[in-house]
Protein backbone atom coordinates (compact mmCIF):
# COMPACT_ATOMS: atom_id res chain seq x y z
CA UNK A 1 0.00 0.00 0.00
CA UNK A 2 2.80 2.43 0.75
CA UNK A 3 4.70 1.93 -2.50
CA UNK A 4 5.50 5.35 -3.93
CA UNK A 5 4.16 4.83 -7.46
CA UNK A 6 1.27 2.42 -7.34
CA UNK A 7 -0.89 2.40 -10.48
CA UNK A 8 -3.76 3.63 -8.33
CA UNK A 9 -1.64 6.50 -7.08
CA UNK A 10 -0.82 7.54 -10.63
CA UNK A 11 -4.50 7.49 -11.65
CA UNK A 12 -5.35 9.51 -8.55
CA UNK A 13 -2.62 12.02 -9.37
CA UNK A 14 -3.91 12.49 -12.92
CA UNK A 15 -7.52 12.89 -11.85
CA UNK A 16 -6.66 15.37 -9.08
CA UNK A 17 -4.64 17.29 -11.66
CA UNK A 18 -7.70 17.30 -13.95
CA UNK A 19 -9.74 18.70 -11.08
CA UNK A 20 -7.41 21.55 -10.14
CA UNK A 21 -5.45 22.40 -13.30
CA UNK A 22 -8.21 24.39 -15.03
CA UNK A 23 -8.10 26.84 -12.16
CA UNK A 24 -4.32 26.97 -12.31
CA UNK A 25 -4.23 28.00 -15.99
CA UNK A 26 -6.30 31.11 -15.25
CA UNK A 27 -3.57 32.99 -13.37
CA UNK A 28 -0.80 32.63 -16.01
CA UNK A 29 -3.32 33.54 -18.71
CA UNK A 30 -4.20 36.74 -16.88
CA UNK A 31 -0.55 37.87 -17.06
CA UNK A 32 -0.33 37.76 -20.84
CA UNK A 33 0.71 40.81 -22.84
CA UNK A 34 -1.38 40.05 -25.94
CA UNK A 35 -5.02 40.82 -26.64
CA UNK A 36 -6.29 37.29 -27.14
CA UNK A 37 -6.52 34.14 -25.04
CA UNK A 38 -3.67 31.73 -25.52
CA UNK A 39 -1.96 29.10 -23.48
CA UNK A 40 0.93 29.08 -22.76
CA UNK A 41 0.56 32.87 -22.36
CA UNK A 42 2.69 35.19 -24.50
CA UNK A 43 4.85 37.80 -22.78
CA UNK A 44 4.23 39.22 -19.35
CA UNK A 45 2.24 42.21 -18.20
CA UNK A 46 -0.16 43.30 -15.52
CA UNK A 47 -2.21 45.35 -17.99
CA UNK A 48 -5.27 43.11 -17.70
CA UNK A 49 -5.42 43.80 -13.98
CA UNK A 50 -5.22 47.56 -14.39
CA UNK A 51 -7.82 47.38 -17.16
CA UNK A 52 -10.39 46.02 -14.69
CA UNK A 53 -10.55 49.47 -13.09
CA UNK A 54 -11.44 51.07 -16.43
CA UNK A 55 -14.52 48.91 -16.63
CA UNK A 56 -17.16 50.27 -14.24
CA UNK A 57 -19.48 47.31 -14.97
CA UNK A 58 -17.05 44.95 -13.24
CA UNK A 59 -16.14 47.22 -10.34
CA UNK A 60 -19.77 48.11 -9.68
CA UNK A 61 -21.05 44.55 -9.96
CA UNK A 62 -18.25 43.34 -7.68
CA UNK A 63 -19.25 45.82 -4.97
CA UNK A 64 -22.90 44.97 -5.57
CA UNK A 65 -22.20 41.24 -5.24
CA UNK A 66 -20.25 41.79 -2.01
CA UNK A 67 -23.13 43.75 -0.52
CA UNK A 68 -25.71 41.22 -1.67
CA UNK A 69 -23.69 38.25 -0.40
CA UNK A 70 -23.02 39.87 2.98
CA UNK A 71 -26.70 40.68 3.53
CA UNK A 72 -27.70 37.21 2.33
CA UNK A 73 -25.22 35.61 4.72
CA UNK A 74 -26.52 37.55 7.74
CA UNK A 75 -30.21 36.87 7.06
CA UNK A 76 -29.74 33.24 6.01
CA UNK A 77 -27.60 32.55 9.08
CA UNK A 78 -30.20 34.04 11.39
CA UNK A 79 -33.14 32.18 9.83
CA UNK A 80 -31.20 28.95 9.31
CA UNK A 81 -29.75 28.84 12.80
CA UNK A 82 -33.14 29.39 14.42
CA UNK A 83 -34.70 26.64 12.31
CA UNK A 84 -31.78 24.26 12.90
CA UNK A 85 -31.98 24.78 16.66
CA UNK A 86 -35.71 24.15 16.73
CA UNK A 87 -35.43 21.03 14.57
CA UNK A 88 -32.68 19.52 16.65
CA UNK A 89 -33.87 20.41 20.11
CA UNK A 90 -37.56 19.70 19.98
CA UNK A 91 -39.37 16.61 18.79
CA UNK A 92 -42.71 17.54 17.32
CA UNK A 93 -45.24 16.20 14.87
CA UNK A 94 -44.39 17.10 11.30
CA UNK A 95 -40.73 17.81 12.01
CA UNK A 96 -39.80 15.59 9.06
CA UNK A 97 -41.94 17.67 6.72
CA UNK A 98 -40.52 20.91 8.11
CA UNK A 99 -37.01 19.57 7.65
CA UNK A 100 -37.84 18.58 4.09
CA UNK A 101 -39.26 22.01 3.32
CA UNK A 102 -36.25 23.83 4.79
CA UNK A 103 -33.81 21.71 2.78
CA UNK A 104 -35.92 21.64 -0.41
CA UNK A 105 -33.90 24.31 -2.26
CA UNK A 106 -31.08 21.73 -2.34
CA UNK A 107 -33.22 19.19 -4.19
CA UNK A 108 -35.22 21.41 -6.51
CA UNK A 109 -32.96 22.50 -9.38
CA UNK A 110 -31.84 26.12 -9.10
CA UNK A 111 -33.07 26.88 -12.61
CA UNK A 112 -36.60 25.92 -11.59
CA UNK A 113 -36.38 28.01 -8.43
CA UNK A 114 -35.23 30.88 -10.65
CA UNK A 115 -38.13 30.74 -13.08
CA UNK A 116 -40.75 30.05 -10.39
CA UNK A 117 -39.52 32.93 -8.25
CA UNK A 118 -39.42 35.24 -11.28
CA UNK A 119 -43.03 34.44 -12.20
CA UNK A 120 -44.10 34.92 -8.58
CA UNK A 121 -42.13 38.13 -8.06
CA UNK A 122 -43.58 39.57 -11.26
CA UNK A 123 -47.06 39.10 -9.78
CA UNK A 124 -46.17 40.81 -6.50
CA UNK A 125 -43.99 43.52 -8.01
CA UNK A 126 -40.62 42.32 -6.75
CA UNK A 127 -39.12 41.23 -10.08
CA UNK A 128 -35.96 43.13 -10.97
CA UNK A 129 -35.67 44.70 -7.51
CA UNK A 130 -32.84 44.37 -5.01
CA UNK A 131 -35.27 42.98 -2.42
CA UNK A 132 -36.37 40.25 -4.80
CA UNK A 133 -32.81 39.23 -5.58
CA UNK A 134 -31.91 39.25 -1.89
CA UNK A 135 -34.92 37.12 -0.94
CA UNK A 136 -34.07 34.55 -3.62
CA UNK A 137 -30.44 34.37 -2.49
CA UNK A 138 -31.47 33.90 1.14
CA UNK A 139 -33.81 31.14 0.00
CA UNK A 140 -31.04 29.09 -1.64
CA UNK A 141 -28.58 29.72 1.21
CA UNK A 142 -30.79 28.79 4.18
CA UNK A 143 -30.53 25.00 3.65
CA UNK A 144 -26.73 25.06 3.95
CA UNK A 145 -26.95 26.88 7.28
CA UNK A 146 -29.67 24.52 8.55
CA UNK A 147 -27.61 21.48 7.57
CA UNK A 148 -24.41 22.80 9.13
CA UNK A 149 -26.20 23.75 12.36
CA UNK A 150 -27.83 20.32 12.54
CA UNK A 151 -24.45 18.62 12.04
CA UNK A 152 -22.84 20.99 14.54
CA UNK A 153 -25.47 20.14 17.13
CA UNK A 154 -25.41 16.40 16.53
CA UNK A 155 -23.19 15.77 19.56
CA UNK A 156 -24.62 18.57 21.72
CA UNK A 157 -25.53 17.49 25.22
CA UNK A 158 -28.66 19.29 26.41
CA UNK A 159 -27.98 18.36 30.03
CA UNK A 160 -25.46 21.20 29.91
CA UNK A 161 -28.29 23.64 29.25
CA UNK A 162 -30.46 22.04 31.88
CA UNK A 163 -27.65 22.22 34.41
CA UNK A 164 -27.32 25.95 33.74
CA UNK A 165 -31.07 26.43 34.22
CA UNK A 166 -30.95 24.56 37.51
CA UNK A 167 -28.15 26.84 38.65
CA UNK A 168 -30.58 29.70 38.02
CA UNK A 169 -29.34 31.10 34.69
CA UNK A 170 -31.75 33.06 32.52
CA UNK A 171 -32.59 31.59 29.07
CA UNK A 172 -30.64 34.27 27.21
CA UNK A 173 -27.58 33.73 29.45
CA UNK A 174 -27.79 30.00 28.84
CA UNK A 175 -27.93 30.55 25.10
CA UNK A 176 -24.99 32.98 25.08
CA UNK A 177 -22.79 31.05 27.51
CA UNK A 178 -23.58 27.42 26.68
CA UNK A 179 -25.32 26.92 23.35
CA UNK A 180 -23.65 29.61 21.26
CA UNK A 181 -20.00 28.65 21.92
CA UNK A 182 -20.76 25.08 20.86
CA UNK A 183 -22.66 26.28 17.81
CA UNK A 184 -20.10 28.89 16.79
CA UNK A 185 -18.05 26.87 14.28
CA UNK A 186 -21.20 25.58 12.57
CA UNK A 187 -22.82 29.01 12.46
CA UNK A 188 -19.68 30.67 11.15
CA UNK A 189 -19.21 28.05 8.43
CA UNK A 190 -22.89 28.40 7.59
CA UNK A 191 -22.40 32.12 7.19
CA UNK A 192 -19.34 31.68 4.94
CA UNK A 193 -21.17 29.06 2.91
CA UNK A 194 -24.20 31.32 2.51
CA UNK A 195 -21.90 34.14 1.43
CA UNK A 196 -20.21 31.99 -1.21
CA UNK A 197 -23.53 30.57 -2.40
CA UNK A 198 -24.79 34.06 -3.05
CA UNK A 199 -21.52 35.44 -4.38
CA UNK A 200 -21.09 32.65 -6.93
CA UNK A 201 -24.70 32.18 -7.96
CA UNK A 202 -25.60 32.45 -11.62
CA UNK A 203 -28.63 30.27 -12.21
CA UNK A 204 -31.09 31.98 -9.89
CA UNK A 205 -29.73 35.52 -10.36
CA UNK A 206 -30.07 35.07 -14.12
CA UNK A 207 -33.84 35.45 -13.84
CA UNK A 208 -33.91 38.21 -11.27
CA UNK A 209 -31.27 40.77 -12.18
CA UNK A 210 -31.98 44.09 -13.85
CA UNK A 211 -29.54 46.55 -15.44
CA UNK A 212 -29.11 48.27 -12.07
CA UNK A 213 -28.77 45.06 -10.05
CA UNK A 214 -26.18 42.95 -11.84
CA UNK A 215 -23.97 40.58 -9.90
CA UNK A 216 -20.32 39.96 -10.70
CA UNK A 217 -20.77 36.38 -12.03
CA UNK A 218 -23.45 37.63 -14.40
CA UNK A 219 -21.32 40.56 -15.54
CA UNK A 220 -18.49 38.11 -16.32
CA UNK A 221 -20.97 35.73 -17.92
CA UNK A 222 -22.40 38.30 -20.32
CA UNK A 223 -18.95 39.68 -21.12
CA UNK A 224 -17.81 36.14 -21.98
CA UNK A 225 -20.68 35.63 -24.37
CA UNK A 226 -19.66 38.73 -26.32
CA UNK A 227 -15.89 38.58 -26.25
CA UNK A 228 -13.22 36.35 -24.80
CA UNK A 229 -10.17 38.32 -23.77
CA UNK A 230 -7.58 38.14 -21.00
CA UNK A 231 -9.67 40.63 -19.02
CA UNK A 232 -11.91 37.73 -18.04
CA UNK A 233 -8.79 35.91 -16.87
CA UNK A 234 -7.67 38.69 -14.55
CA UNK A 235 -11.13 39.04 -13.02
CA UNK A 236 -11.43 35.25 -12.69
CA UNK A 237 -8.04 35.11 -10.99
CA UNK A 238 -9.27 37.60 -8.39
CA UNK A 239 -12.47 35.58 -7.87
CA UNK A 240 -10.37 32.41 -7.39
CA UNK A 241 -8.16 34.15 -4.82
CA UNK A 242 -11.24 35.33 -2.95
CA UNK A 243 -12.65 31.77 -2.86
CA UNK A 244 -9.28 30.52 -1.67
CA UNK A 245 -9.36 32.93 1.29
CA UNK A 246 -12.78 31.65 2.28
CA UNK A 247 -11.76 28.02 1.89
CA UNK A 248 -8.81 28.58 4.20
CA UNK A 249 -11.10 30.22 6.76
CA UNK A 250 -13.55 27.30 6.45
CA UNK A 251 -10.73 24.81 6.93
CA UNK A 252 -9.57 26.69 10.07
CA UNK A 253 -13.02 27.20 11.58
CA UNK A 254 -14.67 23.92 10.77
CA UNK A 255 -12.44 21.52 8.85
CA UNK A 256 -13.14 20.77 5.22
CA UNK A 257 -13.41 17.02 5.69
CA UNK A 258 -16.08 17.56 8.33
CA UNK A 259 -17.85 20.11 6.18
CA UNK A 260 -18.15 17.69 3.28
CA UNK A 261 -18.18 14.46 5.26
CA UNK A 262 -20.70 11.80 4.30
CA UNK A 263 -22.77 12.69 7.35
CA UNK A 264 -23.62 16.12 6.07
CA UNK A 265 -24.67 14.74 2.70
CA UNK A 266 -28.13 13.47 3.41
CA UNK A 267 -28.97 13.83 -0.25
Amino acid at each position, binding site marked *: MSRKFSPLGIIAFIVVLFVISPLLVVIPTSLTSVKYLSFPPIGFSLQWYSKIWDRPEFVDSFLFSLELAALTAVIATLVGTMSGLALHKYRFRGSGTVNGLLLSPLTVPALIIGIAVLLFFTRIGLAGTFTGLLLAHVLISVPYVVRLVLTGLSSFDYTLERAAYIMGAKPLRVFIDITLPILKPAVMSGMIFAFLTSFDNVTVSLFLVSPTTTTLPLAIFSHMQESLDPLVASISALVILLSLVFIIILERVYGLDRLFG*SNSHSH
Partner: protein
Amino acid sequence: MKKKVLVLLLPGLLFLTAFMLVPIVITVGSTFVHDGAFTLEGYMHFFGDTFFLKILFTTLEVSLVTTLMCIVLGFPVAYYISRRGRRQKSLLLALAIFPLLTSSVVRSFSWMIILGKKGLLNNALIALGLIKEPMDILYTPAAMMIGLVHLFLPLIIITLVGVMENIDPDLIKAAESLGASRFSAFRKVIVPLSVPGLIIGSILVFVGSLTAYTTPALLGGKQKVISTFLYQNAITLNDWYSASVIATIMMAITFAVIAIMNKIANTLNPKG
Protein backbone atom coordinates in the same frame (compact mmCIF):
# COMPACT_ATOMS: atom_id res chain seq x y z
CA MET B 1 -42.12 24.52 24.92
CA LYS B 2 -44.53 24.43 21.99
CA LYS B 3 -44.53 28.21 21.68
CA LYS B 4 -40.74 28.33 21.64
CA VAL B 5 -40.50 25.87 18.73
CA LEU B 6 -42.98 27.93 16.77
CA VAL B 7 -41.11 31.17 17.38
CA LEU B 8 -37.82 29.61 16.29
CA LEU B 9 -39.32 27.91 13.25
CA LEU B 10 -41.68 30.62 12.07
CA PRO B 11 -39.22 32.76 10.06
CA GLY B 12 -37.82 29.76 8.20
CA LEU B 13 -41.21 28.21 7.59
CA LEU B 14 -42.80 31.41 6.37
CA PHE B 15 -39.83 32.17 4.17
CA LEU B 16 -39.70 28.78 2.50
CA THR B 17 -43.47 28.62 2.11
CA ALA B 18 -43.81 32.11 0.65
CA PHE B 19 -40.81 32.12 -1.66
CA MET B 20 -40.32 28.46 -2.52
CA LEU B 21 -43.47 26.40 -2.09
CA VAL B 22 -46.01 28.97 -3.33
CA PRO B 23 -44.02 30.04 -6.45
CA ILE B 24 -43.40 26.44 -7.46
CA VAL B 25 -47.01 25.38 -6.91
CA ILE B 26 -48.19 28.38 -8.96
CA THR B 27 -45.68 27.68 -11.75
CA VAL B 28 -46.50 23.98 -11.98
CA GLY B 29 -50.23 24.56 -11.52
CA SER B 30 -50.40 27.20 -14.24
CA THR B 31 -49.19 24.69 -16.83
CA PHE B 32 -52.35 22.61 -16.40
CA VAL B 33 -54.82 25.45 -16.76
CA HIS B 34 -55.89 27.22 -19.91
CA ASP B 35 -58.87 29.59 -20.08
CA GLY B 36 -59.95 28.37 -16.66
CA ALA B 37 -60.12 24.71 -17.65
CA PHE B 38 -57.82 21.75 -17.04
CA THR B 39 -55.57 20.99 -19.99
CA LEU B 40 -52.54 18.94 -20.98
CA GLU B 41 -52.12 20.93 -24.16
CA GLY B 42 -48.73 22.39 -23.22
CA TYR B 43 -47.31 18.94 -22.56
CA MET B 44 -48.86 17.44 -25.67
CA HIS B 45 -47.32 20.24 -27.67
CA PHE B 46 -43.81 19.59 -26.32
CA PHE B 47 -43.92 15.82 -26.43
CA GLY B 48 -45.17 15.99 -30.02
CA ASP B 49 -42.38 18.34 -31.03
CA THR B 50 -39.36 16.48 -32.44
CA PHE B 51 -37.15 19.55 -31.88
CA PHE B 52 -37.91 19.49 -28.15
CA LEU B 53 -37.62 15.70 -27.94
CA LYS B 54 -34.19 15.92 -29.53
CA ILE B 55 -33.07 18.46 -26.94
CA LEU B 56 -34.48 16.33 -24.15
CA PHE B 57 -32.77 13.22 -25.48
CA THR B 58 -29.42 15.01 -25.90
CA THR B 59 -29.66 16.34 -22.35
CA LEU B 60 -30.33 12.88 -20.92
CA GLU B 61 -27.49 11.44 -22.98
CA VAL B 62 -25.04 14.15 -21.85
CA SER B 63 -26.09 13.66 -18.22
CA LEU B 64 -25.71 9.89 -18.45
CA VAL B 65 -22.26 10.04 -20.05
CA THR B 66 -21.17 12.69 -17.51
CA THR B 67 -22.35 10.49 -14.65
CA LEU B 68 -20.56 7.41 -15.99
CA MET B 69 -17.35 9.38 -16.58
CA CYS B 70 -17.52 10.77 -13.05
CA ILE B 71 -17.93 7.28 -11.61
CA VAL B 72 -15.06 5.84 -13.67
CA LEU B 73 -12.71 8.71 -12.78
CA GLY B 74 -13.95 9.31 -9.25
CA PHE B 75 -14.04 5.77 -7.92
CA PRO B 76 -10.32 4.93 -7.99
CA VAL B 77 -9.39 8.38 -6.69
CA ALA B 78 -11.88 8.15 -3.84
CA TYR B 79 -10.50 4.74 -2.93
CA TYR B 80 -6.94 6.06 -3.02
CA ILE B 81 -7.82 9.09 -0.86
CA SER B 82 -9.78 7.02 1.66
CA ARG B 83 -6.73 4.81 2.29
CA ARG B 84 -4.28 7.66 2.90
CA GLY B 85 -3.08 8.88 6.29
CA ARG B 86 -4.81 11.81 7.95
CA ARG B 87 -2.58 14.59 6.64
CA GLN B 88 -2.45 13.37 3.05
CA LYS B 89 -6.17 12.74 3.09
CA SER B 90 -7.03 16.29 4.18
CA LEU B 91 -4.70 17.74 1.55
CA LEU B 92 -6.17 15.62 -1.25
CA LEU B 93 -9.73 16.35 -0.12
CA ALA B 94 -8.99 20.07 0.05
CA LEU B 95 -7.68 19.92 -3.54
CA ALA B 96 -10.80 18.07 -4.66
CA ILE B 97 -13.11 20.48 -2.84
CA PHE B 98 -11.37 23.69 -3.96
CA PRO B 99 -13.07 23.86 -7.38
CA LEU B 100 -16.44 23.13 -5.76
CA LEU B 101 -16.29 26.44 -3.94
CA THR B 102 -15.29 28.39 -7.04
CA SER B 103 -17.75 30.06 -9.36
CA SER B 104 -19.02 27.89 -12.22
CA VAL B 105 -18.49 30.81 -14.59
CA VAL B 106 -14.81 30.88 -13.70
CA ARG B 107 -14.56 27.12 -14.06
CA SER B 108 -16.14 27.22 -17.52
CA PHE B 109 -13.79 30.04 -18.47
CA SER B 110 -10.76 27.98 -17.47
CA TRP B 111 -11.91 25.29 -19.89
CA MET B 112 -12.13 27.88 -22.63
CA ILE B 113 -8.42 28.57 -22.08
CA ILE B 114 -7.63 24.88 -22.31
CA LEU B 115 -9.92 23.87 -25.16
CA GLY B 116 -9.78 26.99 -27.36
CA LYS B 117 -8.11 27.17 -30.78
CA LYS B 118 -4.95 28.63 -29.26
CA GLY B 119 -5.52 26.78 -26.03
CA LEU B 120 -3.39 24.43 -23.98
CA LEU B 121 -4.74 21.24 -25.51
CA ASN B 122 -4.41 22.26 -29.16
CA ASN B 123 -0.96 23.76 -28.61
CA ALA B 124 0.20 20.63 -26.83
CA LEU B 125 -1.14 18.31 -29.54
CA ILE B 126 0.48 20.42 -32.27
CA ALA B 127 3.79 20.54 -30.39
CA LEU B 128 3.69 16.75 -30.09
CA GLY B 129 3.07 16.51 -33.82
CA LEU B 130 -0.19 14.63 -33.34
CA ILE B 131 -2.26 17.17 -35.25
CA LYS B 132 -1.35 19.87 -37.79
CA GLU B 133 -4.34 22.20 -37.52
CA PRO B 134 -6.00 23.13 -34.21
CA MET B 135 -9.16 21.10 -33.54
CA ASP B 136 -12.57 22.58 -32.84
CA ILE B 137 -13.30 21.31 -29.35
CA LEU B 138 -14.62 24.41 -27.67
CA TYR B 139 -18.32 25.09 -28.33
CA THR B 140 -19.10 21.43 -29.03
CA PRO B 141 -21.04 18.86 -26.97
CA ALA B 142 -17.66 17.30 -26.07
CA ALA B 143 -16.53 20.55 -24.43
CA MET B 144 -19.83 20.68 -22.56
CA MET B 145 -19.29 17.17 -21.22
CA ILE B 146 -15.70 17.86 -20.18
CA GLY B 147 -16.90 20.94 -18.33
CA LEU B 148 -19.69 19.01 -16.63
CA VAL B 149 -17.41 16.15 -15.58
CA HIS B 150 -15.06 18.74 -14.11
CA LEU B 151 -17.95 20.47 -12.39
CA PHE B 152 -19.30 17.36 -10.69
CA LEU B 153 -16.30 15.08 -10.19
CA PRO B 154 -15.52 16.63 -6.76
CA LEU B 155 -19.06 15.80 -5.59
CA ILE B 156 -18.77 12.12 -6.37
CA ILE B 157 -15.25 11.95 -4.93
CA ILE B 158 -16.30 13.43 -1.58
CA THR B 159 -19.41 11.28 -1.37
CA LEU B 160 -17.44 8.10 -2.12
CA VAL B 161 -14.59 8.98 0.26
CA GLY B 162 -17.21 9.44 2.99
CA VAL B 163 -18.55 5.93 2.42
CA MET B 164 -15.21 4.22 1.80
CA GLU B 165 -13.67 5.66 4.97
CA ASN B 166 -16.17 3.68 6.97
CA ILE B 167 -15.22 0.36 5.39
CA ASP B 168 -13.22 -1.61 7.92
CA PRO B 169 -9.67 -2.07 6.52
CA ASP B 170 -9.60 -5.46 8.26
CA LEU B 171 -12.19 -6.70 5.77
CA ILE B 172 -9.72 -6.18 2.92
CA LYS B 173 -6.92 -7.77 4.90
CA ALA B 174 -9.19 -10.71 5.66
CA ALA B 175 -10.06 -11.13 1.97
CA GLU B 176 -6.40 -10.94 1.00
CA SER B 177 -5.29 -13.39 3.67
CA LEU B 178 -7.96 -15.80 2.42
CA GLY B 179 -6.18 -15.76 -0.93
CA ALA B 180 -7.97 -13.01 -2.85
CA SER B 181 -5.74 -10.88 -5.08
CA ARG B 182 -5.66 -7.18 -4.32
CA PHE B 183 -7.89 -6.48 -7.32
CA SER B 184 -10.48 -9.12 -6.51
CA ALA B 185 -10.53 -8.00 -2.87
CA PHE B 186 -11.24 -4.52 -4.21
CA ARG B 187 -13.95 -5.84 -6.51
CA LYS B 188 -15.63 -8.13 -3.99
CA VAL B 189 -15.31 -6.03 -0.83
CA ILE B 190 -14.88 -2.35 -1.66
CA VAL B 191 -17.16 -2.09 -4.68
CA PRO B 192 -20.29 -3.65 -3.10
CA LEU B 193 -19.84 -1.73 0.14
CA SER B 194 -19.49 1.54 -1.78
CA VAL B 195 -22.82 1.16 -3.59
CA PRO B 196 -24.77 3.52 -1.28
CA GLY B 197 -22.22 6.28 -1.85
CA LEU B 198 -22.17 5.51 -5.55
CA ILE B 199 -25.94 5.92 -5.76
CA ILE B 200 -26.00 9.21 -3.84
CA GLY B 201 -23.07 10.47 -5.91
CA SER B 202 -24.73 9.42 -9.17
CA ILE B 203 -27.96 11.21 -8.24
CA LEU B 204 -26.01 14.39 -7.48
CA VAL B 205 -24.08 14.23 -10.76
CA PHE B 206 -26.98 13.18 -12.99
CA VAL B 207 -29.45 15.70 -11.64
CA GLY B 208 -26.73 18.34 -11.56
CA SER B 209 -25.84 17.77 -15.23
CA LEU B 210 -29.49 17.62 -16.24
CA THR B 211 -30.18 21.05 -14.78
CA ALA B 212 -26.81 22.82 -15.12
CA TYR B 213 -27.05 26.06 -17.05
CA THR B 214 -23.75 27.95 -16.98
CA THR B 215 -21.50 25.21 -18.35
CA PRO B 216 -23.69 24.17 -21.32
CA ALA B 217 -24.41 27.83 -22.13
CA LEU B 218 -20.74 28.80 -22.17
CA LEU B 219 -19.01 25.67 -23.51
CA GLY B 220 -21.67 23.92 -25.58
CA GLY B 221 -21.87 26.39 -28.45
CA LYS B 222 -25.05 26.00 -30.49
CA GLN B 223 -25.96 22.67 -28.89
CA LYS B 224 -29.11 23.28 -26.86
CA VAL B 225 -29.89 21.37 -23.70
CA ILE B 226 -33.09 21.54 -21.69
CA SER B 227 -31.74 24.20 -19.30
CA THR B 228 -30.61 26.59 -22.04
CA PHE B 229 -33.88 25.91 -23.88
CA LEU B 230 -35.82 26.84 -20.74
CA TYR B 231 -33.85 30.07 -20.37
CA GLN B 232 -34.37 30.93 -24.03
CA ASN B 233 -38.12 30.48 -23.69
CA ALA B 234 -38.34 32.43 -20.45
CA ILE B 235 -36.06 35.39 -21.09
CA THR B 236 -35.30 35.66 -24.82
CA LEU B 237 -38.76 34.70 -26.11
CA ASN B 238 -40.66 35.86 -23.03
CA ASP B 239 -42.86 32.78 -23.40
CA TRP B 240 -43.47 32.08 -19.72
CA TYR B 241 -46.06 29.40 -20.33
CA SER B 242 -43.61 27.25 -22.33
CA ALA B 243 -40.88 27.97 -19.79
CA SER B 244 -43.16 26.76 -16.99
CA VAL B 245 -43.99 23.58 -18.90
CA ILE B 246 -40.29 22.88 -19.51
CA ALA B 247 -39.53 23.61 -15.85
CA THR B 248 -42.23 21.16 -14.76
CA ILE B 249 -40.91 18.45 -17.11
CA MET B 250 -37.40 19.06 -15.78
CA MET B 251 -38.58 18.81 -12.19
CA ALA B 252 -40.57 15.63 -12.91
CA ILE B 253 -37.48 13.99 -14.44
CA THR B 254 -35.36 15.11 -11.46
CA PHE B 255 -37.73 13.59 -8.92
CA ALA B 256 -38.22 10.44 -11.00
CA VAL B 257 -34.44 9.91 -11.15
CA ILE B 258 -34.10 10.42 -7.39
CA ALA B 259 -37.00 8.03 -6.69
CA ILE B 260 -35.68 5.32 -9.02
CA MET B 261 -32.13 5.53 -7.65
CA ASN B 262 -33.40 5.40 -4.05
CA LYS B 263 -35.49 2.38 -4.98
CA ILE B 264 -32.41 0.68 -6.41
CA ALA B 265 -30.49 1.55 -3.24
CA ASN B 266 -33.22 0.03 -1.08
CA THR B 267 -33.39 -3.16 -3.13
CA LEU B 268 -29.65 -3.62 -2.98
CA ASN B 269 -29.40 -2.80 0.69
CA PRO B 270 -32.79 -3.28 2.38
CA LYS B 271 -31.48 -2.40 5.84
CA GLY B 272 -29.78 0.69 4.39
